[in-house]
């Protein structure tokens, strides 16, 4: 059902066109390639989490044309992106920039993995130590049991 609602929302925002149209494609294949790469990282502002490369909304088309216009004018990829961000804000980037306000977002995977790993290492060592606290007789009995079990 969740997916359904998403479909509905995404598709309700569709115009009649479908994503990149043949008439938008640039003559120079290298330039077109760059345009596609940039487009897939820019959000269609009226859609839900869709890039302008995938979207059929009119606004997405305008943005695609804008990107191609800037590229043809000789802008670098970064300059094109900056140009779009200046106009529409950070919201347009599907990959948020790394800065103070997005610190937690970017660091969460590293933090969880790191802290989880440290926690595990700690648990293993503690267990090891408590195991070592056994008397030598106990240890021998345990070893014998483990051997037999294995």
């Amino acid at each position: 059902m969740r997916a359904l609602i998403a479909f509905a929302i995404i598709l309700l925002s569709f115009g009649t066109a479908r994503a990149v149209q043949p008439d938008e494609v640039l003559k120079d294949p290298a330039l077109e390639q760059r345009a596609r790469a940039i487009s897939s990282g820019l959000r269609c502002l009226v859609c839900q989490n869709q890039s302008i490369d995938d979207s059929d909304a009119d606004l997405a088309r305008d943005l695609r044309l804008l990107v191609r216009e800037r590229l043809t004018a000789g802008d670098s990829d970064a300059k094109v992106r900056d140009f779009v961000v200046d106009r529409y804000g950070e919201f347009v980037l599907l990959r948020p920039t790394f800065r103070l306000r997005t610190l937690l977002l970017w660091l969460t995977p590293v933090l969880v993995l790191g802290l989880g790993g440290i926690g595990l290492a700690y648990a293993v060592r503690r267990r090891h130590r408590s195991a070592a606290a056994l008397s030598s007789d106990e240890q021998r009995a345990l070893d014998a049991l483990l051997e037999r079990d294995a």
Partner: protein
Amino acid sequence: MLVEAGHFALALALGLSLIQVVVPLWGARANDPVLMAVAPTTALAVFACIGFAFFALTMAYVTSDFSVLNVVENSHSTKPLIYKIAGVWGNHEGSMLLWVLILSLFGGIVALSRDSIPARLQANTLAVQAAITLAFLAFILTTSNPFDRVIPAPADGQDLNPLLQDLGLAIHPPLLYVGYVGFSIAFAFACAALIDGRIDAVWARIVRPWTLIAWAFLTLGIAMGSYWAYYELGWGGWWFWDPVENASLMPWLAGTALVHSTVVMEKRDSLKIWTILLAILTFSLSLLGTFLVRSGVLTSVHSFAVDPERGSFILGILVVFIGGSLALFAWRAPMLQQGGVFAPISREGALVLNNLFLATGCATVFIGTLYPLALEVMTGEKISVGEPFFNLTFVPLIIPLLLLLPLGQTLAWKRGNLLGAAQRLYAAFGLSLLVMIVIFAFTHQGPVAAPLGIGLGVFLILGSLNDIVTRSWVKGGDWSLIRRKAFGLPRSSWGAAIAHAGVGLTVIGIAATAWDVESLGTMRPGDRLAVGPYEARLETIVPRRSANYREDVATLTILSGGRELGSVETMKRLYITRGMPTTEAGILTRGLSQVYVSLGEIQPNGALGMRLYYKPLVLLIWLGAVVMAAGGGLSLTDRRLRVGAAAKARRLPVSPLPAE
């Protein structure tokens, strides 16, 4: 009349679930078998009531009873019967009814399997389960009643959203819900164990089949949804990192971790506290997903504020159940006995690592989905978190997990030998490397990601095969003996091997998307357009009419070197009642690869805009998921997991339980 009866049955179910919460809990506390025995009886009664309510709503749809508001808003007399039935859950109210129906169905099954579950555990579990049912029934009856009437009744309905008029609607939500809601049983068992303060390997053996069922269905549900999006949305994407998709991915990741940790708990009586926590978290994430989608908070923070009734209610449910269960956990978990000890290098250790990576992956999806919401609420700033973010964070987490998977599968329990395990994998690793090099040599100008990913996928498949082979190998290579040994292996070992091979298939399918070819062009009848190794020729474009839509149909012939392979139809549809356009893609399947054709705009000069894709091995993405679910299903048929198998042998006629 039937509609009112359905409404009444729902209210009755609410009352009965209240009894199902209070009486068994009391009974378990007072150790009174008669009070505890109320749980299974009421659970079956609640299921019967909700089942009847669901039947009543379905009948209202089938007979197009337009005096029911829900039917008016989502149905139409000309709609095909299958979509009238599927339309029952193609809207908010109906889908919530399906949610509680499945919830009570699971409760009913737990009630019937009393032979295999100790009475106290069953009573406590059904009480917790009933508490969830109670909350959602109250939600439906107060904010989302599907049985509301409308006076005067209109002549016809407003039709179902055209995008939902698809076979996918009949299959996807029920699969997904069985998965989501199935984890509620693991949750209820976990809470019951905490209430009772006792947990052991028997608990894990009882819970494992339920988590496996839920996991397998969720896997199928997500795969089905992904394939549906692929063919319905018309640009050939299959995963969008959309918050709604993430909402289903999170419980899947946590559930995958849970399926693995219950293995450790069952076999080695270890990781108990973690498994309990994971069971709670998995269902909590299912609830979170329900909240995210049902409250409208995803579309915009503001839409939540405008119509806060439903959102607040579910948020309340969320807080009570997640907060309550975690508080219970914090209070009771320290009292639980720690279990078996194991060395870091062992099967258990490998499964702990698996859980660490899956939990981190889940946390990454969680933060990526909720961070924009949180940031907007706190600072008003809007950011987007999309595919590029997840490619940079989630994918690097999953790759090491997959690389280590065959190694972990080869390690022995308790105390493993890393070098020995690695040696047993030499052949599998060498072969995968060879496959990778060969593919790379043949496609050396193409993308590097494809051969690398395919190598990984092949390694996963061979690693799984290797596990079965090494365990059934006998010196001298006596075939009949090997075969007998292989078939004598526990079904759960086969299930694990097959599920992991399924992961390999999916990885290959995903890696091969790097070879996708896209062709855009304008075509007139007779024109040809090349796409990958094939060519498409536009034959005709004709208008057509159906009961509830009109469409323009373009027919194309797909050719390979001048030879005709078959024809596909791609349509632009207009659904008449809602005035909504859709595009239907045409797909030609060749083996595991597909040619995907989608009709674009009619250009000013009268030619047709056409979008063609060649997608090599794309079917493996979903086929792999089906194989994963099949592996889970096979595991379920393992003797030791079969619900009730162990207990039937030693059933004792003790408690005066009523007949079912």
